[in-house]
């Protein structure tokens, strides 16, 4: 009996420490993502708007991409796991080209070591064709950063964050393709 009281009071303590929130109502897609290691927002999460430039200097902003499913990927040229997952990003891009889906691979210049030129050269040298964004103001890496890279976000066509993944991933796996196909309107 004592044990039960102890356990119950411990649980009560933990609950008291946590803000009263509803458990996330996971959609079937989110369930799939959750099972493969993605983090799922506790509450419905509006993706905060951001903007940056593409390699040619054109402005890209999230609010102009409404209606598209977005895979936001934070990376750097100096990060081996980021470099390792890039071929799979390219494959995913090729497979879903033409649909309402876009990759936004965000590079953040931190001069003098990581520069805009370095990012551009890296992409060109490797022949990647998926959209790459430069986060000159570091606002995206600040807001969407998890403290480490690679970190990737899946944002649905309504501009809501569905899931976040920290670490390298095989993006053109059958599972991921299935997930994106389900999401693309």
């Amino acid at each position: 009996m004592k044990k039960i009281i102890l356990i119950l009071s411990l649980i009560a303590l933990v609950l008291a420490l946590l803000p009263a929130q509803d458990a996330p109502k996971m959609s079937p897609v989110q369930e799939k993502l959750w099972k493969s290691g993605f983090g799922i927002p506790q509450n419905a999460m509006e993706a905060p708007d951001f903007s940056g430039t593409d390699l040619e200097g054109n402005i890209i902003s999230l609010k102009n991409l409404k209606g598209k499913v977005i895979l936001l990927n934070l990376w750097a040229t100096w990060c081996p796991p980021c470099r390792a997952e890039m071929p799979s990003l390219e494959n995913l891009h090729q497979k879903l080209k033409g649909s309402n889906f876009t990759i936004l691979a965000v590079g953040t210049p931190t001069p003098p070591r990581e520069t805009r030129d370095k990012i551009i050269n890296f992409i060109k040298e490797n022949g990647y064709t998926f959209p790459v964004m430069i986060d000159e103001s570091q606002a995206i890496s600040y807001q969407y950063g998890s403290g480490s890279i690679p970190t990737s976000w899946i944002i649905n066509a309504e501009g809501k964050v569905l899931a976040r993944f920290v670490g390298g991933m095989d993006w053109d796996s059958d599972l991921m393709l299935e997930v994106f196909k389900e999401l693309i309107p």
Partner: protein
Amino acid sequence: MKKTSLFFLSFLFIFLSTTVIYSQEKVKITGKISKTEQSAENNYSLTVNFEIPEGFHQTRSDDFFFISFVDNERFKIDKIVYPEGILKDGLENYYGTVELKADFIISKNITGSVKTAKIKAAWQICNEDGVCFFPEEEIIEIPLEIPGTLPGSGGTPWILLQFLFFAFLGGLLLNVMPCVLPVLSMRALNLVRQSQNDRKSILIGSLLYGSGVLVSLLILALIVIILQMTGQLVGWGFQFQNPLFVMSLITIIFIFALSLFDVFLINVPGMNKMAAASNKKGWLGSFFNGIFAVLLATPCTAPFLGTALGFAFSQTPLFIITSFTAIGLGFALPFILIGIWPKLIQSLPKPGPWMDTFKEIMGFLLFGTVLYLFSSLQYQISLNSQFKFLIFLTLTAFIAWLYGKLSKPGSKFPSAILALIIAFILLGVSSYFLIDGKQNIQGTEEPGLRKGWEEFNPDSLEQYRKEGKAVFIDFGAKWCSVCKINEGRVLLTERGNSFFKERSIIRMKGDYTNKDPLIDKWIKKFGKAGVPVYAYYPADGSNYILLPELLSFRILEDYIPVQNANKKLDDSLFLIQPSK
């Protein structure tokens, strides 16, 4: 039950992940400096150890894993020696404690002693799950025990010593000017003869002569100090921020430089008679000889003493006195040395035409000084005023030449004094029309030139504060090197631009190139004595925050965090698989 357990697990994970990740990613840095074994006197070796936490590794990279000196002017690093790492997926990885070594030399071009060296250690680690953390760096200070550096002499006193040394050298060089050297030899000979070769009285005589020199220079210093104080009382600014002061200094030095080319002769009327009258025997005579040596040498020494005086106007009384003492000691040194070893008279350089060449070379040195001063003037007054000032200088040259013609011995002109009066009147008239000391408050830099910045104005500041806007204030000046570093590295960069935009901060710039009284008042209000001053007024209306003089993005970010408008989407908002 599912609900509770999920919460419990997520809470547990967040708690654990924050403690695990953040406590473990800390890399410990230690370093030491030693003398390299086999090599030349100036070679040292720097060793820095990186203690990488368990579960993490560092990949070899020149860009993200390195050591360097913060003061890379003084310490020149050869190349960093990396140990052999463990090859994995084509990358060279390091685990545990990694030692980076580099040989370096201490540049001898830089004076002043060093007791410690600041070393920057940079790393960027990844964990075994394929997650990489952002590059980091730490600055550590390592004690230096290097023979040959001056013990206990910090930077500023060393600079002061250097300055005093040059003042002393200047005084010494005055002795070889054409109107000093012949007189010096003569006086020295007289002293030896008068004292009937009695060593003791020669010594006393020469010391008295030296003190005469010193006293006259101290009188000059005193005059400067008194003028400086009265000047300040009536509101004259003897500072380099005051264009009138700079222009006067330029004119005086320019006139002196002309005199060194014999365009005219500086001649104090009646001085020769007075000097002759004082040329008495005895110790008092020696003392006055010292005083008059300075006065008699005026035609050659005035250009230099005058320049020194001019510069002295902007300094503190203590500095004026010490530097003039140094000049005096230099000036009196040969005579005192002769007093100690009378035989030295024979080794004095023989007067001759070479002295004129020397004098003229010195004249060019003064023209160089004029240029140097002009370079600071160009930011203070408008281009038009600068051009007018150049016309004025040309007229000044003409007036000096005219005065030289009229006052020449044997000239048909009635009197040298009259010529001097005419010269002064002409100078006065031309300066009235041509000297425009009105400060170009905006400098050459229009506020519009600095994109995204507006000119500092207390009223607008107050208005912005009322509207609940954050304001960043930058007080700087053209002549402030730290300001330029900060502008080039942080404030005026593209990243700096976005930094302020992202946080919706109004930027205001106050230019202190010319001593603007309004900005002066505000600098004092911020409790500072000079520029740069960086003050940040948060949007919430709370009091201002002062930032350090030397800025970096890290400092800016620390002092000015991103406002809640751009809230970070951190781990606490997510439900994360505990296994992940």
